[in-house]
């Protein structure tokens, strides 16, 4: 095995670990701000995995939209609120047990599915060099094939805009 490939595999484990650790950090930290930062870490780990999967544009968008815009929004809202009381709050024992139970069972089920999923044993190969870049491909698809969903999403965003205005405008009268 070439060293580059070993390196790539190693990177997979590193980024996966970052993502998983970040995700765990989100749920174990009492402070929402810390949680938010952990989430950013998880998103960055995810973005790295995307890039490893040769989805450069997606990875970058992931960092920009999630790690950037969305998380800023979250932090902004957290800051708006008084989070002092959050610190004192304890986890409910039942809730923890319930969460553990459900997610462990889910992971076990997933493992069994994956164990059975033969196509999943494909090894991550190298893409042919002559393939067009993903930006070009995605852009082309988006605006030649997917123009209908794009327009629908436009309406969706319109709804969201109106909704946010209606819900948060201080004085409507």
């Amino acid at each position, binding site marked *: *095995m070439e060293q580059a490939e070993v390196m*790539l595999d190693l990177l*997979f484990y590193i980024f*996966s670990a970052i*993502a*998983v650790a970040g*995700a765990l950090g*989100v*749920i174990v930290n009492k402070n*929402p701000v810390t949680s938010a930062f952990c*989430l950013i870490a*998880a998103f960055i780990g*995810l973005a790295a995995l*995307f890039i490893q*999967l*040769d*989805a450069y544009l*997606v990875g970058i*968008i*992931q960092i920009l*939209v*999630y790690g950037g*815009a969305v998380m800023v*929004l979250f932090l902004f*809202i957290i800051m708006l*609120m008084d989070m002092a009381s*959050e610190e004192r709050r304890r*986890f*409910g024992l039942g*809730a923890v047990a*319930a*969460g553990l139970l*459900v*997610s462990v069972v*889910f*992971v076990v089920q*997933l493992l069994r599915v*994956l164990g059975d*999923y033969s*196509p*999943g*044993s*494909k*090894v*991550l190969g190298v*893409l042919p060099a002559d393939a*067009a870049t*993903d930006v070009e*491909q*995605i852009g082309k*698809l*988006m605006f030649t094939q997917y123009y209908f*969903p794009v327009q629908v*999403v436009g309406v*969706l965003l319109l709804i*969201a805009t109106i*909704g*946010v205005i209606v*819900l*948060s405008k201080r004085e409507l009268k």
Partner: protein
Amino acid sequence: MEVTLNHFLFVSGLLFAIGLAGVLVRRNVIVIFMCLELMLSAANLSLVAFSRFNLTESGGPDYNAQVFLFFIITVAAAEVAVGLAIIVALYRAKQTTDVTQINSMKN
């Protein structure tokens, strides 16, 4: 160990499960919301992994999935916006973000 599709799928599923656990465990509605976003992203990882491994005839990844992913991210962002607006409104009305405090309707 060589990295296979299943590796990515497992990480994706694990993140999804962690997100799910977070939704169930946490009481702060904002953190819950974060966990939901995490779940979405985790699902995205599966999508990208499948895209990368379901090679098209030309040998490249199936970019349809990546296009889909753009829509998912867009929708998720919109959802975050609306969701946070609702949470803020709730906070204004009830001065709390604890989901166990919002249970005026039951049975």
